[in-house]
């Protein structure tokens, strides 16, 4: 039955079938979907202005029915801030990875497709970026261009460029020698047509899988920068920043740091699970 099933369906349908059989994929989709929904609906459910949020009389309250995650040192409701933090973290994750994919893919395409000196130069550049442990590189970049959420986003994105450059380069090199590409070139297709119609689509699956897993890393790295005071700045409700502010009070009020950390963990877990599930679906050979 399995063979006839596979025979009858398009590759997309087969992938979808495999994805639905992957329990980590489903769990990941559920978690990621939840956070996306939360981020989209937050402004309607809990309208929030971080600059005006101060209720000093209610500071450092433990979790109660009224404030289910308690309040922080300025009397701000942690639950509302955690909810709004999802908007920041998801945006950072998606934009940073988007930047890395665009720049990395272009570099990898150029290196793999043209080879020779172009390849040498780009590979040299990538090796240099890879000489730094990722968090250090991100910290160094932010130290140079200045702290802030947008700069943290750029830094986290730059750190991930080598992953995509290498991935795309290897895909391009393995595909460009194949007959259908030679045929396209023989028929007079332009470079850009060959690249975008024939080469790139074949690299799409690993890019999607890696992209999902990268969002998880990007969220973690950006939170780390926020924690070190190099990312989002007060009073933004960024999760890493909230944990670092709570650090000062955490013997008296551990909930300030606790809940943003749970949020980071669950969100990152969601993207990791989704990435694993997508790998099962799109890249059945490499999955376990």
């Amino acid at each position: 039955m399995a063979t006839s099933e596979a025979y009858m369906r398009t590759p997309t349908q087969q992938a979808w079938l495999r994805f639905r059989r992957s329990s980590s994929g489903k769990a990941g989709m559920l978690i990621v979907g939840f956070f996306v929904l939360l981020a989209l609906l937050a402004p309607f459910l809990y309208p929030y202005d971080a600059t005006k949020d101060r209720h000093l009389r209610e500071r450092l309250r433990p979790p109660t029915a009224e404030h289910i995650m308690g309040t922080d040192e300025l009397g701000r409701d942690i639950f509302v801030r955690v909810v709004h933090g999802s908007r920041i973290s998801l945006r950072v994750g998606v934009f940073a990875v988007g930047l890395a994919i665009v720049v990395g893919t272009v570099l990898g395409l150029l290196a793999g497709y043209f080879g020779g000196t172009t390849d040498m130069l780009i590979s040299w550049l990538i090796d240099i970026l890879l000489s730094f442990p990722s968090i250090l590189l991100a910290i160094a970049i932010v130290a140079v261009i200045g702290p802030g959420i947008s700069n943290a986003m750029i830094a986290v994105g730059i750190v991930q460029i080598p992953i995509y450059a290498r991935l795309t380069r290897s895909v391009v090199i393995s595909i460009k020698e194949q007959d259908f590409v030679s045929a396209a070139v023989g028929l007079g297709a332009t470079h850009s047509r060959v690249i975008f119609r024939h080469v790139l689509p074949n690299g799409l699956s690993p890019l999607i899988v890696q992209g999902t897993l990268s969002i998880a890393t990007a969220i973690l790295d950006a939170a780390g920068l926020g924690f070190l005071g190099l990312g989002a700045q007060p009073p933004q409700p960024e999760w890493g920043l909230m944990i670092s502010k709570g650090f000062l009070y955490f013997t008296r009020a551990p909930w300030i740091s606790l809940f943003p950390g749970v949020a980071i963990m669950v969100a990152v877990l969601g993207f990791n699970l989704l990435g694993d599930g997508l790998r099962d679906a799109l890249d059945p050979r490499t999955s376990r």
Partner: protein
Amino acid sequence: MTAYAIRRFLGLIPVLFGVSLLVFTFIHLIPGDPAVVMLGQRATPQALEKLRKQLNLDKPLFFNVKAAVEEKNPAALFESQYFSFANRILHGDLGESIFTKVDVATELRARFPATLELSIGAMLLAILVAIPAGIMAAVRKNSWVDLTVMTGALVGISMPIFWLGLLLIYLFAVNLHWLPPSGRLDVGLQVKPLTGMYVLDGLLRGNLAVTLNALKHLILPSIALGSIPMAVIARMMRGAMLEVMSQDYIRTARSKGLSERMVIWKHALRNAMLPVITIIGLMFGTLLTGAILTETIFNWPGIGKWLYDGIGARDYPIVQGGTLFIATVYVIINALVDLSYGFFDPRVQYH
């Protein structure tokens, strides 16, 4: 093998050259006058001038064409910021801190043992937990053991380590008072440094109190720093083990009547260890150089915390020297890991 090793290390030269270029450019990418940024708006013109001289900011960036033409001396072409910087670092001189005036290279040497001790502690912990866990998960695939190990590993990868560190401090130091929350030794205890790693120094100097106390301080940061390698190694171990267990020679070993224990320990494990050893090597490089968050939380006086403080103070010689040092250590470790393939697996041929 030797030829490959030589080529691998020669290949590091262009990379390290690029790294030095990048680190050098850092200081010039800062918006505004670097001297003003470092000393602040209220610095006196004399102080600014002195710093500019000290950092060679009065010279051109790469090639001093003007001096070369005026003095009719091609060598003067290299009287530039980059070449004096490169000349300095090749002589092991990483400059001195702007604020504390300490020599960056000396400070790195003094602090590196602390980072090394923490990395070794974290890695030992990770290996001791992850390898048995990974093997058990593979041997009993799809059992509750497997599920627990794999879920644990996934959670470990997904947890921010600075948050895990805080939880550990809150639980074991603040509430239970079992372990100290920060630092490397209790106040009052000290040991004359030999290796700079206190656990070892205590043993070597016959001062057991120091060793025990240093170990106590080491536990919490090692758990925090070791969580990610632990998760990665466990996943890798399981994957490699499953891969090996599905091969023909394992079936042969089983069919000739060997006990399952023999099959796993003698036949499967040895071959499954190769990718695991690789990942351990690579992760060790990351630990050694990426302990910034952990060291900051636990107030651990290693290079990570020092670098972080240097960034906060805009002490650019520290940032430059520290980054350069870390990148160099990192690429060398990665090259050594590459070379170790041949040592652990004779089938590997180098080209």
